[in-house]
């Protein structure tokens, strides 16, 4: 089965690579904008819990309860019909998944900042550390250690979510696989090949998450 899958990958390598390129392009947008925007929004939400905080909590709550596919379809079909616009499916998919990622990341960051033990900041103050030192050398390292594994795992989930983009005709790798299957009908081999592509991208990120978790998120509870 695996040799057949490799044969199919080799035979249709151009199509697979083109699809993989679209998937990775989509993921790169979701990851970079999601992490940067989510971090900024999470920080704002923690600093201003009454306005930005409510906004982030509400957004995360609503998006968390809404299936991504429903949101994607809604933004692709009815929303564009209502506003009489036609938007490239790739842009719609990138916007939808990034929006979800921004709120997911912002929730992680907001909670990590809000739950940050203020005692560490008090200790920094009485030790004469500047605000900048406290942020860069105390607060950020502790928060990063806390959220990094969960953040990386959530980005793997976002990578897998890009499969939904095929349903609004984005030529990403899943759609390529479906088209190949439609012409040669070898679903086991084709979806095995697809799984191998995703494993090749996901496993390093998963591995990095596990490595960071073991390296940095030690049990810090004191004796």
């Amino acid at each position, binding site marked *: 089965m695996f040799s057949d899958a490799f044969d199919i990958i080799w035979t249709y390598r151009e199509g697979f690579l083109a699809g993989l390129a679209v998937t990775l392009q989509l993921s790169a947008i979701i990851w970079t904008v999601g992490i940067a925007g989510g971090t900024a929004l999470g920080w704002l939400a923690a600093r201003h819990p009454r306005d930005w905080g409510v906004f982030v909590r509400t957004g995360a709550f609503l998006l968390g309860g809404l299936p991504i596919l429903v949101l994607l379809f809604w933004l692709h079909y009815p929303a564009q019909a209502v506003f009489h616009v036609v938007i490239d499916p790739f842009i719609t998919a990138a916007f939808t998944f990034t929006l979800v990622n921004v709120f997911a990341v912002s929730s992680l960051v907001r909670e990590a900042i809000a739950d940050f033990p203020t*005692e560490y900041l008090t200790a920094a103050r*009485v*030790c*004469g550390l500047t605000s900048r030192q406290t942020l860069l*050398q105390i607060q950020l390292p502790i928060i990063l250690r806390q959220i990094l594994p969960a953040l990386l795992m959530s980005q793997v989930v976002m990578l897998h979510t890009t499969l939904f983009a095929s349903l609004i005709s984005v030529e990403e790798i899943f759609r390529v696989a479906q088209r190949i299957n439609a012409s040669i009908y070898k679903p086991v081999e084709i979806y095995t090949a697809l799984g191998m592509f995703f494993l090749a991208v996901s496993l390093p990120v998963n591995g990095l998450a596990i490595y960071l978790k073991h390296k940095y998120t*030690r049990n810090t509870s004191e004796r």
Partner: protein
Amino acid sequence: MLRAEKISKSFGGNQVLQDVSVWIKPGTITTLIGPSGTGKTTLLRALAMTDAPDAGEITVDYKKYVFPLAHDQKLSPLPWPRVTAVFQQLFLWPHLSLRENILLPARNFPRTNMDVELNELIDVLEMKHFIDRFPNEASLGQRQRVALARALMLQPKYVLMDEVTSALDIEQVANILNFLPRLKERDIGVLIITHALNFARRAADTVLFMDHGQIVERGSFDLLDNPQTPRLQQFLAAIQAAQ
């Protein structure tokens, strides 16, 4: 001198400090004793200005801070680490080794003999065998010594310590007692909250007894042998009975 005048502090409707006035002279050691829940830690935090008092004045040498601060007013200049504190919960940063916990803030005050100073503290406080561990790998007594070393490496003028010997064994407490005169030689004013009366008696130039948010009695170290107020007599008798 670190001088607090008529400090008051409430939490909700609970008045914890009522018009408390204390002063700590450079080169002296003051111990603060009293029953639990009487406001000792609140007073220490107020003096350290980490929890600003609701009312009163705190003067650090020649700089006066008047409370309450105006809405958008900040402490200026910042009193730390001229005034620094070692809290009961210690608050060591968990992502740094114990050595780095000491050195990170100390590097803001560079001097040529910093390594010598640190090594001296490591020797005096017997920290050599655990100094490169992380806080969660050290016992409470070890962390207490590190928190104390972190404060002392800042070259403070006043050090406020909350129960920093509570987890130390007799030998380590003796080391601290032997070390305290060196702080006096460096002209550092020290305030120590303690429940250990023998430690208070041996360490202190001045003893303060606090009850119900007020300083009830103050005097030299022999106050503990000659209490003047019935409340302190009662407190000391209760402790002796418990021992």
